């Protein structure tokens, strides 16, 4: 079932066209993330769904009802049955935590069990009498979330809810938010520019760019099979090297690699761009089979290390990124042999050399 459906949505502010033909569907019960660089129109999209702004063209359908279609339908924000969690939480500063949470409830229910239950849910049972400025950033964000959930909305909209938090708090609050959304069985749409957050939190991720949704997929699908090189670079680190497509595999400086996905070659050979994720790169002591390189830099992250290898042969990419778990036996300057494992993604290069698209 579909909770939210957006078709051909356009929105401009003055001469500035922010969204130009967005199509998006959000299945009931899912958590969908909208991922895009800043200025890509993510927040605008959320505000249009919430009903804080009107669209110029297209339709927005919530739970089967058209809520915004220029000229034919408009449903005011307060009748859309949505919950909205803004970036800074925006708790009402003159109300206590209890009253904030109860704000959307009918008069009789504002002091009732629903509020207690929600306070319990976020582990703040004793803090209902506090004012927003007496809470930490993480607590404020949790309260903002349950305030939105209190009325059991059909759809919850979250606008970069973690960006105002300390990085150290973020992971904890993020996990809590997912738990709360799951517990409430809510459908949620989350806006973020943090690819880590999108991939780790969401069931589905819609990448928005140049005013459109350019890919909407599961996190895994997005990472393993991005629609173009730009998306590939946006959702994780990427080595992009040239290759030639031959019969379902691709020939690169690292040898012939199996081509993941639908990258079947057309008739004859075709030039291609190949995506190699850093964790597909393996390093061996120099002298073994593989491309010759030299360790340029190493970044230790605890759970793994990222190594930059200066290639000493012609690969098309002079620096190769490798992610290695566990001990790294190679010092900076150490010669190594580089190999690549597993299927890779490749895109054909158009004859004019500039355009890149996914292999057919």
């Amino acid at each position: 079932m579909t909770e939210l459906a957006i078709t051909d949505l356009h929105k401009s502010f003055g001469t500035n066209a922010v969204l130009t033909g967005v199509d998006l569907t959000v299945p009931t019960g899912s958590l969908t993330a909208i991922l895009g660089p800043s200025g890509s129109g993510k927040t605008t999209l959320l505000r249009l769904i919430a009903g804080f702004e009107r669209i110029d063209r297209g339709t927005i359908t919530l739970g089967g009802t058209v809520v915004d279609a220029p000229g034919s339908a408009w449903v005011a924000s307060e009748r859309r049955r949505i919950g909205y969690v803004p970036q800074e939480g925006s708790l009402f500063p003159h109300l206590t935590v209890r009253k904030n949470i109860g704000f959307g409830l009918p008069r009789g229910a504002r002091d009732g069990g629903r509020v207690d239950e929600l306070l319990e849910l976020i582990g703040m049972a004793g803090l209902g009498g506090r004012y927003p400025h007496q809470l930490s950033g993480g607590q404020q964000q949790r309260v903002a979330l349950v305030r939105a959930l209190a009325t059991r909305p059909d759809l919850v909209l979250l606008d970069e809810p973690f960006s105002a938090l300390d990085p150290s708090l973020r992971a904890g609050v993020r996990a809590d938010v997912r738990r709360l959304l799951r517990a409430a069985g809510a459908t949620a749409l989350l806006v973020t520019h943090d690819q880590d957050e999108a991939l780790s939190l969401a069931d589905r991720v819609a990448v928005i760019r140049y005013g459109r949704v350019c890919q909407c997929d599961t996190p895994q699908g997005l990472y393993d099979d991005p629609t173009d090189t730009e998306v590939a670079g946006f959702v994780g680190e990427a080595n992009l090297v040239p290759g030639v497509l031959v019969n379902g595999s691709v020939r690169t400086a690292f040898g012939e690699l199996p081509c993941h996905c639908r990258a079947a070659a057309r008739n004859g050979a075709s030039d291609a761009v190949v995506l190699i994720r850093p964790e597909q790169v393996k390093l061996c002591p120099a002298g073994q089979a593989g491309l010759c390189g030299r360790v340029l830099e190493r970044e230790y992250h605890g759970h793994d290390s990222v190594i930059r290898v200066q290639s000493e042969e012609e690969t098309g990419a002079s620096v190769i990124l490798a992610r290695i778990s566990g001990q790294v036996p190679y010092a900076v300057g150490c010669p190594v042999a580089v190999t690549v494992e597993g299927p890779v993604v490749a895109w054909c290069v158009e004859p004019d050399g500039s355009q890149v698209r996914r292999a057919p």
Partner: protein
Amino acid sequence: MSATVLREHESAPPLPPNPGAPPAPARRRATPRLLLAAGVLAALVLLLPLAFLILQAAQDGWSALHPLLFRSLTATLLWNTVSLTAVVTVLCAVIGTLAAWCVERTDLPGRRIWAVLVVIPVGIPDFVTSFGWKSIFPSLGGFWGAALVMSLAVYPLVYLPVAASLRSADPAQEEVARSLGLGRVRTFWRVTLAQVKVAALGGCVLVALVMLAEYGAFEILGFRTFTTEIYTEFLTGFNGPAACALSLVLVVLSIFVLTGEGLSRGRGRQARTGGLAARVPRPHRLGRSKLAVLAGFFALVGLALGVPVGAIVYWMLHGGTSTLPSVSILSAAWHTVFYAAAAGLVATLAALPIAILSVRHPGRMSSVLERSTYLVLAVPGLVVALALTYVSERYAAGFLYQSTAMLILAYAIMFFPLALVAVRASVAQAPPGLEEVGRSLGRSRLEVLWRLTMPLVAPGLAAAFCLVFLEVVTELTATLVLIPTGAQTLATQFWAFQSNISYGQAAPYAGLMILIAAIPSYVLGRWFDRLPSRAQASA
């Protein structure tokens, strides 16, 4: 002294970014026409006195103005006014800044008590302070007498903003300076003074504006300035053109002061990362100079507070008789409170459209509107009163002249900038993002207005009302010109008695005036402490 609070707020730590406010310019909404019309109307009424002055000067023509402006009297007045203003401003800057530093940053004994005592003189009208001095030392007067009394009456205008900026300034800057090898004295000069410079300059501008506008104190001390001369020309000489010409010079001086401040503010900002300074700085040890500093504070409070309050109490106890018809003090108090409340209401309501425009619909139009209203600061109350009188005489056949409505209008014009500062701050307390959240929670526009916007905005509106109320209660000059026949306020009745040297009769009026003014001052203090920036700092 109105302006105190105005500046104190300005130098207070910046408010945190509006939660949930849309990242403005891209999604600016269309400005509602009605709001714009109301804003333009308010601005036009405010600029009426200034426009009238210019119009009048243009009508009289240069040939008429020339002999009025270029006479030895103008030169004398110019010298008197400018030199006294300069001396008092410098004295206030020194006293105010040093006192603020000692109270906020040193281990002066009894800092909390001094912090209160040093500020109280701001609540006593200048003409009451000079009355206190003159009634005890009848020979006091002239340039240095005026300089002494006015400095003691208005130095809190510098003290308050400087103390506020010292409280919010980052003490780590001083520590960094010390670690870079600067001694205590050089640190004070190069770091501490730089931190408070903007606040101190703001205070000095207020002092200068007050000096240019003051009438009552100079009249009592027998010192001639532009204001006393304009008053004389107008009320005793009935010489309209001369009063207008002198007013023009006075307004030009005031505009000069205001723009000077704007220029000095232009460069440099106090940048501080990581929110508010949470740490309380370690106070400087006064050491051997402690006794001298303490003696200084005793002297300051004794002279600035003890003399006027002592004089009032003394004359109240000793009483005296008067040949003037006695007016019931209750009736005068009633008029005072009524005018003040009405003016507070009018000014607050008039400030609303411009405040909403500038906060919610920022743009060139609203910023021009907002700034134009601050021009009123450069028009002394006496000039506002004269201009309104002339407008009524020349263009409305005396309509409304010396009517209650016109007096209230004059007050509302004079104190509009104060109301605007408070109303603006209060409108900013309710960012549109909060209303959006409220509506997304399923509540109607009306309910959101009632449950969210009103509670957030109301305290600030009350503060604006109190500010204007407080100012009107202690206003003398414009009231003397415009008060309806037969009515008396506490200030005008006090003035009548003291002019007649009936000090015993005058004193109770001064005392009651100060008492009434103390209530809104208290409310205001509470409000400024509760602004979220302060609340968060103390949380």
